[in-house]
């Protein structure tokens, strides 16, 4: 029910209050309402839930988290080192 799927905004239409986007979900394109994410631009990734983008995916935060996981792999065993 709270499923939200990440997709990439490929086009934006509409007025200031009711912007809608075309969002590409790995090959499937659907429309999403951008009313809750005024900052979103073409090329951004958004999480879409029941036809609404509910957040912009922070790519920098995602990269940092994945990098931290890789350093966990590299350190292998030392409990506190990655925190």
């Amino acid at each position, binding site marked *: *029910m709270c499923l939200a799927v990440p997709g990439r905004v490929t086009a934006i239409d509409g007025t200031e209050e009711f912007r809608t986007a075309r969002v590409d979900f790995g090959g499937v394109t659907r429309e999403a309402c951008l009313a809750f*994410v005024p900052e979103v631009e073409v090329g951004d990734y958004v999480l879409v839930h*029941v036809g609404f983008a509910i*957040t912009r995916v922070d790519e920098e935060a995602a990269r940092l988290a994945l990098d931290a*996981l890789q350093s966990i792999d590299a350190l292998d065993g030392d409990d506190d080192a990655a925190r």
Partner: protein
Amino acid sequence: MRHVDEYRAPQAIKGLIQRIAATMTRPWTLMEVCGGQTHAILKFGLDELLPERLRLIHGPGCPVCVTPLEQIDRALAIAATPGVIFCSFGDMLRVPGSHGDLLLAKARGADVRIVYSPLDAVALARREPTRRVVFFAVGFETTAPANAMAVYTAARAGLTNFSVLVAHVLVPPALEALLSAPGSEIQGLLAPGHVCVVTGYRDYERVAARYGIPIVVTGFEPLDLLRGVHAAVVQLERGEARVENQYERAALRDGNPAALQVVRDVFTVCDRKWRGLGEIPASGYTLAPAYAGFDAVQVFGLTDVTVDEPADCLSGLVLQGRLRPTQCPQFGKRCTPEHPLGATMVSTEGACAAYFHYGRTPAQAAHPDAARENEVSAL
């Protein structure tokens, strides 16, 4: 797919599971709150890959599952009214009411339609001015902004043939009800990532402080879930009890202000009855007075519907994390996704349905060690 595949990398999953095992000096019990998380845990077999001493109990975070019987009965009564088009998310159609479900109502001639977005129901009301269009507004905080926006849009358009049957529920009050219940075994929580995307996680800071448990805002992919488990276990081992955000790419401490604004305009907090948990004070939304004209319960005169839950479905215990689905005597026998006794077997996110779909059998539950020997590792 970006922001999906990276979080399913087998090596990283394996490394993180080893890391969790190495961190644990004693058994711990965590509850993942959201049904979407439960579904992912079972789908990817994380429950079988994690150390045995790490127990995951499945929370009540499936709005379909916690919607009480009387609200389904109201939906059935509205759907059967001549001239009505009843719109719903697909999940709700098979949830049994006292007499049948919405799918059966449709088979008997009711105009029941599945919509992708609540705005689709508003568009339908515009296209069909001679019909009364009712949308079944279920969901947690994640869905509240979309459903609020549908009502707001209908109001701005001056639609008089649109209404909503509201069954909105809120996560923190339910968590507090579970945590304060005598004998609660929950030592840490994985908070629902997409609820927190909308609301932020300040409310969870209060819960963590009051009950002295770590709460980790957690996403839905395998690595997200394992990061949540790892962070919770590290806090438990250190004796800490704070809110930590492990879903940084999506959730912020203050949530989504634009989404919260429309929710505050359209809805107001109310007491709600939860299937399995009973009535919980201030645990749901109803329409604010300015939008009361859109309340289908008032429009169709259905205020006096009260129904008891069926005795042969133990979903109440499952929703409280007190019973594994496979421990229910009806599981996989009288109760299957084709013929569900209760909502937890219907919704794709219900714990019973997840156990059924991903082959967790009563035999496995009775002999966890045997199950582990037979386990097919995803790695």
